[in-house]
């Protein structure tokens, strides 16, 4: 299990991978990917009980993670490859023809580590509930994790799933919401104000936790707390405050880098802020 310092070093490399992936094809979503880097790094290198090789779709006896906001595929691919699911070198193929690393993650190309296609928003929580119910039927005590964007919570299916999980006591499930307050057309306040996320999830009957998603210590300790809250009759949701573009100064504080790739100059400027800790692919 990696230390906080080691996790921070991995996260730095993951951020480099994100910038280089989207720059290479001049497309993709760096903003949310950078914001969720610390969370996904902590999850895959510290929290999850998982076996990358050989990858097994059913994942019996393993914790499962479902990325519901599939557009942040660059961070997902980087973390999956860096934790051994597939060769790091394959990040070069991101969004290119005949690649397993599609613009949005899919099982269709059989990329190890991906258990459901996502991209069209709002579907991952339902899928995760299904996987969690399967685990209960199989007497499998491992857990199911998800990640969602806060803008994604505007999709109605999320609340169908939230209602179900609470009513049926799906308590082997930890959902995380990337509360960066940004979406494509602007801030969530401007586009469609989400109101109090805490009050909403509590009203739906979930156990609500908070964390600073760009502080590795907060992420690691909150995930441990979340684990200790499972098995008590409630689904757990972590409202994770992050900064879109976190780790690259000129990408922070705006929705403008949601789905825009850096040019050559911007890439160089960004990489200069991120130490190459594990070696670039």
């Amino acid at each position, binding site marked *: 299990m990696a230390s906080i310092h080691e996790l921070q070093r991995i996260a730095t490399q993951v951020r480099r991978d994100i910038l280089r992936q989207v720059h290479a094809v001049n497309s993709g979503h760096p903003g949310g990917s950078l914001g969720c880097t610390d969370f996904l790094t902590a999850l895959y290198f510290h929290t999850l009980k998982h076996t990358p090789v050989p990858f097994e779709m059913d994942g019996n006896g393993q914790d499962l993670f*479902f990325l519901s906001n599939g557009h942040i595929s660059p961070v997902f691919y980087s973390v999956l490859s860096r934790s051994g699911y597939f060769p790091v070198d394959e990040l070069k193929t991101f969004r290119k023809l005949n690649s397993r690393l599609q613009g949005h993650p899919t099982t269709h190309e059989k990329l190890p580590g991906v258990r459901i296609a996502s991209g069209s928003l709002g579907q991952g929580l339902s899928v995760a509930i299904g996987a969690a119910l*399967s*685990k209960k039927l199989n007497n499998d005590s491992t857990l199911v994790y998800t990640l969602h964007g806060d803008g994604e919570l505007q999709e109605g299916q999320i609340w169908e799933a939230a209602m179900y999980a609470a009513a049926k006591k799906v308590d082997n499930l930890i959902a995380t919401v990337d509360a960066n307050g940004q979406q494509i057309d602007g801030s969530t306040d401007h586009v469609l104000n989400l109101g109090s996320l805490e009050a909403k999830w509590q009203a739906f009957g979930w156990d609500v936790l908070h964390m600073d998603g760009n502080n590795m210590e907060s992420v690691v300790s909150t995930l441990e707390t979340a684990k200790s809250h499972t098995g008590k009759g409630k689904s757990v949701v972590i409202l994770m405050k992050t900064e879109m573009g976190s780790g690259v100064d000129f990408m922070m504080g705006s929705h403008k880098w949601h789905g825009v790739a850096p040019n050559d100059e911007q890439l160089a400027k960004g990489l200069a802020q991120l130490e190459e800790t594990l070696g670039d692919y």
Partner: protein
Amino acid sequence: MTAPFTYTDQQDTRSGFGAGLLELGRKNPEVVALCADLTGSLKMDAFEKEFPERFFQIGIAEANMIGIAAGMTIGGRIPFTGTFANFSTGRVYDQIRQSVAYSGKNVKICASHAGLTLGEDGATHQILEDIGLMKMLPHMVVINPCDFNQTKAATLAIAEYDGPVYLRFGRPKVPNFTTADQKFEIGKAVLLKEGKDVSIFATGHLVWKALMAAEALMEKGIDAEVINIHTIKPLDEAAVLASVSKTGCAVSAEEHQRHGGLGDSIAQVLSMNLPKPLEYVAVNDSFGESGTPEELMVKYGLDTSDIIKAAEVAIARK
């Protein structure tokens, strides 16, 4: 060789599904059932009663149901979802597309009350586009069995097939005439009556009407061949071509829109391989309305007399 059939009684195809699901519950511990607040209508209550731990009441939240079903395949379960055909397809198209079809999940989408024969509830519930919606999805299997016995057999068969399936059936009691011990082969058309003048390709509730039409045509000196296309996708193209090679013309009959249904699938095969006249018996670019199933089938041109007329027109066009 023709498959045997004998009229036995009137039964609803949805009860065939319920009977099949119950038997599956006893045979296959991996089978689970999910329902969106229509357990009685889908005849899933016997399964729920006998296997409460494998039955999941989702509530009126069909999108969530499809997603949960997709997730339950991870861990090895075989989920059967149940709701009306409208809520099984149009309402949840994107969930099926991304979480089931594109993700390649082994979910069986079981849909009752399809088509006009839902009756008095009217057009909001009478989906006539579901076959088209489902057959457009890559690798989706689309099945529309013709009676109680065949729906039961199909329900058992799809559990053995690894991949997404859309199983469509209906509400009213209709003639039960296929054999109780039939082996259901996905993608294999069933020849019910041999003939040499016209091929009638029917699916679902229209199969019995096609047999009645063939009897009436015989009295007029027309020898019609009747083929039950219970699997619309993958279509048994060899059976279609073999029959039309012999008869020289065809009629398609279905409780569905003309656009995108069985008829269009037959037309595609014929136009690419064997261009011969084809007449459609289908709803012609229209919504349904309230009425009894029988009244609606007559008003919207899906009755036995419509198949007879279509056969005569097809023959005249040879």
